[in-house]
């Protein structure tokens, strides 16, 4: 069944008007799929992730539906969503290191969290300890305050607690960004492990780092300025992308194991458009080398090959 998002629009209320952070987004995730969500800062990737779980005060639901395992999630209703949060859909927030309550010991905090969902702590404690051990943390962590743990340990603790009730969908928002490369690799490895062991069915991994996604994700969805640009298998996105934005982005990434004596990488000229009053049509138009008059209309997000969708007039034609 998985997740099906249809024409989702979410905006931020500001004094100057609504900022359309997520504008007409349609995609699906199959059971057991790890989907990477990539894009630059301000492209709406975190807004999209958050809107599936938790619309904060400034965010406004405008349009669209979100279906998880055949059930429509009431994302516009903060109270009603409580039924689904943590049980069916769970999140590891962007700053997981500061997501833990500093005045509670980890065990006590988990206890309170479970009670709010009508689950007794005793019934799940063994499983909790087993999972902590799986990610290399000892049982003693439960008796510690967050300040006693290192950044990587907090990150792993939050991941274990978030997935404790075996949610159907986990949204992992920039969970590897603040970590060292070796810790990064360990945390990324855990994502795959969690899926294999059935702790979560499917995942959305949000990051700006495509090279991490190429390691852990099955499919990658690239966003640009609130619109979807391209979705395909991780391998296709990295080796044979079609959307001009994806192409330029991939070609601008330096890598280890390559000598750059003569080669010079180039960035994408220009900056992303402001979303307060975004341009009509394709939002990458101003920076795109292939742009034509046709791009003043918004390109549809269409299949160009099985499992490969692109929103670009030049590619689809």
């Amino acid at each position: 069944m998985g997740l099906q998002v249809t024409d989702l629009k979410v905006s931020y209320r500001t004094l100057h008007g609504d900022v359309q952070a997520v504008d007409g987004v349609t995609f699906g995730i199959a059971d057991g799929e790890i989907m990477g969500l990539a894009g630059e800062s301000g492209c709406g990737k975190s807004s999209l992730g958050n809107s599936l779980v938790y619309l904060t005060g400034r965010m406004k639901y405008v349009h669209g539906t979100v279906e998880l395992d055949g059930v429509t999630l009431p994302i516009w209703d903060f109270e009603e969503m409580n039924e689904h949060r943590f049980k069916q859909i769970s999140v590891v927030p962007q700053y997981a290191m500061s997501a833990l309550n500093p005045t509670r010991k980890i065990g006590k905090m988990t206890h309170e969290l479970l009670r709010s969902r009508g689950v007794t702590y005793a019934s799940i404690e063994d499983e909790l300890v087993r999972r902590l051990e799986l990610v290399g943390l000892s049982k003693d962590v439960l008796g510690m305050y967050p300040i006693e743990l290192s950044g990587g340990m907090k990150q792993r603790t939050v991941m274990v607690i978030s997935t404790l009730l075996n949610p159907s969908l986990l949204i992992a928002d920039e969970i590897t960004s603040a970590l060292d490369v070796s810790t990064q690799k360990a945390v990324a490895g855990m994502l795959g492990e969690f899926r294999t062991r059935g702790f979560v069915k499917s995942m959305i991994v949000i990051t700006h780092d495509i090279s991490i996604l190429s390691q852990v994700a099955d499919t990658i969805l690239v966003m640009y300025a609130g619109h979807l640009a391209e979705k395909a298998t991780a391998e296709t996105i990295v080796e044979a992308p079609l959307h001009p934005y994806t192409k330029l982005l991939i070609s601008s990434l330096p890598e280890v194991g390559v000598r750059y004596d003569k080669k010079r990488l180039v960035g994408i000229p220009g900056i992303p458009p402001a979303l307060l009053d975004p341009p009509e049509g394709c939002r990458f138009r101003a920076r795109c080398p292939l742009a034509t008059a046709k791009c003043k209309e918004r390109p549809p997000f269409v299949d160009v090959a099985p499992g490969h969708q692109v929103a670009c007039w030049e590619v689809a034609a």
Partner: protein
Amino acid sequence: MSRRLDGGSTGSGGAGLAGAGADTGALMELDGCCKVYKVGAFGGKRLTAVHDVSFDVHAGEVVSLIGESGSGKSTIGRMILRLSPVTEGTICFKGDDVAKLKRSGLQEYYRHVQGVFQDPFSSYNPIYKADRVFKMIKDAYFSGVDDREWDAKVHAALEAVTLDPTQVLHKYPHQLSGGQLQRLLVARALLLDIEFLVADEIISMLDASTRIDVLNLLGDLKARGLGILFITHDLSLGNYISDRTVILRRGAIVEMGATEKVFGNPQHPYTQMLLASVPQLHRKWEDVEAAYLQVSNAVEVDSRESSLVELEPDHFVRSAA
């Protein structure tokens, strides 16, 4: 402590880090630098952040300082910029000990040596317009220069960092992008007679599509003859930009040398582990591991009780003495 890296303490022909024929002397030279912080109540405990670090940077050269968090890489940058004193050892700029500089000498030092730091948003005072950083330079160093001449100088500096003056002057920091702010700071350094730049994680906060431009800018500065110390945790960026690489671990150098040698033929288990952990676009972790971790039975050596050994010309590795 007196081990010189461009000398021949290991006696391998004296080619040294500088490479043959570059005997003009290093621009910035660190010799046996240590930094010890006093921590805990009443400073009772001692924490060694940097331990016996020696390397040098020549003009027209980019040296990457790579390490994970807590490896002391930023501390080294701060010591070079005299933002934090050296506990032991010396840092010499063109042969002069930086620690001994007094008022006017120090001001003269900052005319030639400048730093740019990680977070462009906190480098600026949000109350003032971003171009106030130029005004401050003028007041401190060029108070005699008339306004028109100064404006021309500012415009030339902005051009050098590929910024359009009309887009960035008279704007507040929040109106500019991170890449623009970071380039403004480099332009500010260029207004001085800069010869050495400490670039501390300057692109970590930038987006993928713009970070490569700032990186290329460093390449252009190098071509102008600047010496650059590029501090980063990202091995792929270090690999792209630098001529030489220094790998730090817990405050000590574990491996250093020409970039292609350190990255192409890593010898220290820590370097191998780092390279195996970097996510690569076209190769999976499993395949990479096999390539780098050939010497899986390599013995972990305590960096405090070992020394750097020159393995081949311009390639030093820490191993048990």
